[in-house]
């Protein structure tokens, strides 16, 4: 491995700068049996990051109930898949883009929406509905206005251009999010139940194909950027936020679905965070095969890109596929028709290694199973959240004016109408929106059918803070109630666990409590978890956000014409209160 690309000396400091602990370094050295090259170090660092490895949360996530007769594919793939009858499946997931949205609200939120849609259409589904769960700081905090308008414009900017209706979500405000907003985006797609695409690679010698936009130096991690030598002479710090290109993604969607209508794809994986690295490693690992990549063949946007940058770039609107042998030209034609890049950049091997080449020369070689299996998993210490003191209702003075109290409630930012937001989202495109935002759950009809999907996203973080177990339960139950209120039968949920620093036992305790509560509610309601996402370290100045496990659920209603909404229909009708 005499390549210049890897001339950078690997020192303990450099390893530490890549976020790899001493303990993890030992494991890494054992796996490699030698010093990793610079490129290899980059790959370990992203694969073992919290984001990719779920090292703090995996242990607990495994305890969530994920099964049921309706579940076709639970957590572990790009998105969850449930049976909705008539040979059709709904594919859905929620994902966070919290930190990027705080730094650059428009692009951060936009690329979050782009990412979650790719997760869904990479499995063969056409996205039919988007939701977004937003948490902002106090309305009078100086940054809030700018963040709200940027995030909302970004979500609309991407979803509207894609032509996928944004039909629901939630928006609340609390000072704990002043320095750390939450932007969670959810997409629901529709596929044929017998035509779902997975990421598992197979077939030794089969071509590995890159499609979509070119790779640039987007989102390559800041800390590692500083130590790298590729920087051009400009003194400006290279931005680490990605810019979304919804038009490219719309083309990618149409091209992928067109190719998927045939039978040339063996497996496909979108390039999200840690782009080429996580997609190729995941495909090889799931298929118990190896993958060899010819990095000089990757379509590049900038000159002088290195293997390290190519493997770590987070450029958007890209996919990696394994095709059946000899089907490259058929696929190329489709992608060229849609004016997208297409390149054969590697091959499936039997070595179970990820081998990276540049002009035929090896620039990286990592055994895949230990890279994945030995990825750290921590059972972090946690302490249960102390019981909050119950407020004695009698101790709260009755409001002097009921109308005044009502006005105050309606006028509070959390309860106020969110019309200003959802009118900036195209919630009608596709012509199947039966219940628009503004109700309990949105309802979209399945094209050509009378049936539809009801969907809602919910969480009350104040409850979770007071009692994580009960708060976790209540988030699931609220979502279930919102869906049932339209007349739909709830089917399954996705979730987005937004918490503070898991290395603090009290925060970890909130996480554990929420998981326990959610599990209990999911089992009681037969409402399994089929996908999800975790976002930790949501803190500013050592203060964690309110624990926010957002639940996104879907249900099915046989006849959308019979779905219910909350509008009062006629004067003089009786209002009835049911439940305890």
């Amino acid at each position: 491995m005499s390549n210049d690309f890897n001339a950078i000396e690997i020192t303990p400091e450099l390893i530490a700068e890549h976020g790899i602990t001493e303990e993890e370094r030992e494991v890494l050295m054992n796996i490699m049996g030698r010093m990793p090259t610079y490129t290899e170090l980059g790959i370990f660092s992203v694969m073992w990051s919290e984001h990719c490895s779920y090292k703090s949360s995996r242990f607990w996530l495994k305890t969530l109930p994920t099964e049921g007769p309706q579940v076709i594919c639970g957590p572990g793939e790009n998105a969850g898949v449930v049976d909705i009858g008539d040979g059709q499946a709904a594919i859905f997931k929620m994902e966070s883009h919290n930190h990027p949205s705080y730094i650059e609200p428009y692009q951060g939120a936009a690329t979050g929406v782009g990412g979650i849609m790719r997760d869904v259409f990479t499995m063969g589904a056409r996205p039919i509905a988007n939701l977004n769960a937003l948490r902002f700081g106090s309305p009078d905090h100086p940054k809030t206005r700018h963040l709200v308008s940027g995030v909302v414009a970004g979500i609309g900017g991407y979803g509207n251009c894609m032509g996928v209706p944004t039909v629901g979500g939630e928006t609340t405000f609390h000072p704990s999010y002043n320095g750390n907003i939450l932007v969670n985006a959810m997409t629901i797609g529709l596929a044929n139940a017998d035509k779902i695409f997975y990421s598992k690679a197979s077939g030794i010698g089969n071509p590995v194909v890159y499609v979509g936009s070119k790779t640039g130096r987007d989102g390559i991690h800041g800390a590692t950027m500083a130590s790298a030598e590729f920087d051009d002479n400009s003194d400006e710090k290279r931005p680490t936020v990605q810019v979304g290109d919804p038009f490219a993604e719309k083309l990618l969607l149409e091209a992928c679905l067109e190719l998927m209508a045939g039978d040339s794809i063996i497996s496909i994986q979108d390039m999200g965070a840690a782009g080429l690295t996580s997609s190729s490693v995941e495909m090889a690992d799931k298929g118990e095969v190896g993958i060899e990549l010819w990095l000089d063949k990757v379509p590049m946007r900038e000159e002088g890109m290195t293997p390290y940058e190519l493997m770590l770039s987070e450029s958007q609107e890209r996919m990696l596929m394994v095709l059946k042998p000899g089907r490259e030209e058929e696929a190329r034609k489709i992608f060229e028709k849609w004016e997208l890049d297409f390149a054969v950049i590697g091959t499936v091997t039997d070595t179970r290694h990820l081998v990276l080449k540049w002009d035929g020369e090896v620039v990286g070689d990592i055994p895949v199973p230990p890279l994945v299996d030995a990825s750290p998993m921590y059972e972090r210490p946690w302490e249960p959240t102390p019981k909050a003191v119950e407020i004695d209702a009698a101790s709260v003075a009755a409001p002097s004016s009921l109308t005044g109290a009502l006005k105050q409630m309606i006028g509070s930012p959390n309860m106020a109408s969110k019309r200003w937001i959802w009118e900036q989202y195209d919630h009608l495109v596709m012509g199947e929106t039966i219940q628009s935002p503004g109700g309990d759950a949105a309802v979209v009809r399945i094209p050509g059918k009378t049936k539809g999907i009801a969907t809602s996203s919910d969480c009350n973080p104040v409850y979770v803070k007071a009692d994580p177990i009960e708060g976790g339960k209540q988030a699931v139950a609220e979502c279930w109630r919102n869906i049932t209120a339209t007349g739909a039968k709830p089917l399954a949920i996705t979730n987005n666990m937004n918490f503070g620093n898991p290395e603090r036992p009290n925060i970890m305790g909130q996480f554990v409590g929420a998981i326990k509560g959610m599990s209990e509610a999911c089992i009681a309601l037969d409402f399994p978890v089929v996908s999800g996402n975790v976002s930790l370290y949501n803190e500013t100045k050592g203060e964690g956000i309110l624990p926010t496990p957002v639940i996104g659920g879907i249900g099915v209603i046989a006849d959308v014409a019979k779905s219910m909404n909350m509008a009062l229909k006629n004067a003089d009708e009786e209002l009835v209160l049911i439940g305890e």
Partner: protein
Amino acid sequence: MKAKVYITLKNGVLDPQGKAIEHALGALDFGGVNEVRQGKMIELDIAESDEAKAKSQIEAMCEKLLANTVIENYAIELIG
């Protein structure tokens, strides 16, 4: 004092607009067009007549509103 502010994307930041324009020019048979980047130009007239002060005032406007300094650079031209 009149001024123009030019706002451009930083190096390396994806420019979907520029890319699409480049592509469209190619489709219209304008060959050999490369590196198309789209930026903004903002013209304004401010009350301040002192050059140095005007410049620093406009700089403040750029930092606070006109440019998104996470991904954009700006340049100021005073016209007088």
